[in-house]
């Protein structure tokens, strides 16, 4: 990114494989579960003053509140003018659980019983708005809605505001809580969902993505301010890019055309040569078409075997608008631990795909360096972040 450097000084995660960054990391390196990835035994009430405050937030906002609390606690005292603090939380479907519940209320009890909180709970900007109110951050507070690319785009958009001097710090991430009977049926009827319940990115037996919920939030902070206050810096947002396939509402463009242009633009934005890329956290959804297009795109830019690739969706499943943020968190943790988590569920590389260097079985030791994190959303939205190691 041209302009000021962007440090990551806080990280918070609420995911099915672990709540909190350390538990999340352990989950990423552990065997994957089977079936939908939901966060069980998690009590949101700890984050709210009273039941009323909690009840007027949808689950996707509750996840964001918890993740942001962790990220901010880690970041410590920012001492920044609140008008220069931004909030960018992406989501795919926002408060769909609230919407579905209230449709049921209307059908069974009539329109007079529909909650006055339906709209402020379901709107996709509710998580961002709730965080800005909770923490008094009064700079730009916006919401990126680009399906499965939303988390990545939100972080990219937020980083640019820090880079160009508009903000000094931004809470950035993505959150999704998509488990309602109607949404599951919709995804299922698209034949996008795995029927086996096993997420197997880049494996010939892959049969669709496994739906997940989850949220990650990063504190992005102007580098010099972070250094001056002695903050712990996890990594740096070196660059980002966003392109559209302009091809089909759900299928990726042939040959991974949109993914190729997105990764190339992100590398240009970061000023990083393809040959210097150490690692790629792939979108790797475990759908036939995504993984084929993405592997093709990676091979086109980097050759084979190319950088070390993993898809953490083998463990996490696909948390849609939360996914890109969870994967940025996975990259930052991989840098801190100097280990790249394996692609769980993957047994053999699909022989029809280019021979990408996929981490399989055990976590792989690496020397952290420039890393791409890819996200591709229904609608043909492509997003790539370039994250630098400290």
């Amino acid at each position, binding site marked *: 990114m041209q302009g000021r450097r962007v440090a990551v000084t806080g990280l918070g995660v609420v995911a099915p494989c672990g709540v909190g960054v350390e538990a999340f990391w352990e989950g990423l390196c552990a065997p994957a579960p089977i079936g939908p990835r939901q966060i069980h035994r998690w009590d949101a009430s700890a984050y709210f003053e*009273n*039941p*009323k*405050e909690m009840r007027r937030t949808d689950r996707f906002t509750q996840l964001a509140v918890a993740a942001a609390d962790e990220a901010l606690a880690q970041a410590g005292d920012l001492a920044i003018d609140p008008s220069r603090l931004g909030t960018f939380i992406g989501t795919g479907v926002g408060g769909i659980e609230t919407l579905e519940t209230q449709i049921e209320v209307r059908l069974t009890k009539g329109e*007079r*019983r529909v*909650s*006055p*909180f339906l709209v*402020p709970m379901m709107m996709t900007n509710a998580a961002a708005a709730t965080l800005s109110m909770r923490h008094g951050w009064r700079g730009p507070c916006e919401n990126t809605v680009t399906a499965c690319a939303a988390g990545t785009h939100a972080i990219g958009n937020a980083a640019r505001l820090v880079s160009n001097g508009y903000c000094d710090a931004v809470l950035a991430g993505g959150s999704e809580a998509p488990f309602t009977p109607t949404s599951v049926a919709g995804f299922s009827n698209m034949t996008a969902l795995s029927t086996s319940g096993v997420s197997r990115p880049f494996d010939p037996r892959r049969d669709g993505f496994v739906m997940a919920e989850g949220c990650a939030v990063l504190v992005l902070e102007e580098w010099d301010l972070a250094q001056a206050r002695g903050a712990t810096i996890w990594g740096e947002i070196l660059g980002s890019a966003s392109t559209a396939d302009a091809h089909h509402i759900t299928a990726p463009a042939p040959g991974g055309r949109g993914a190729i242009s997105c990764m190339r633009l992100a590398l240009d934005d970061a000023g990083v040569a393809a040959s210097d890329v150490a690692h790629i956290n792939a979108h790797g959804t475990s759908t036939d078409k995504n993984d084929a297009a993405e592997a093709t795109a990676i091979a086109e830019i980097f050759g084979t075997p190319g950088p070390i690739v993993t898809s953490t969706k083998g463990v996490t499943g696909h948390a849609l608008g939360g996914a890109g943020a969870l994967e940025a968190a996975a990259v930052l943790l991989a840098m801190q631990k100097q280990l790249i988590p394996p692609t769980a569920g993957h047994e053999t590389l699909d022989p029809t795909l280019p021979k990408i260097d996929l981490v399989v079985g055990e976590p792989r030791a690496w020397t952290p360096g420039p890393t791409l994190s890819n996200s591709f959303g229904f609608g043909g939205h492509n997003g790539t972040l370039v994250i630098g190691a400290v």
Partner: protein
Amino acid sequence: MSDNFERFKNCAVDVLSVDADQVVMEATFESLDADSLDLVELVMALEEEFDVNVEEEELDGITTIQGAYDLIVSKI
């Protein structure tokens, strides 16, 4: 205190997340940290509890527990 007020109070405690001893006749909704949307939600709960109908315009000017309670009781 009447049985009706006990039922009213239970609704208010549940919807507004306040303590039962805060729900007294002279309490204002402002003092109970209840905004206009909270009031709508409380009235919905009261409509169900007492099997009454309250029109939106009837809530104009209602700022206290007494006001809301009197409105509900007048409809039973």
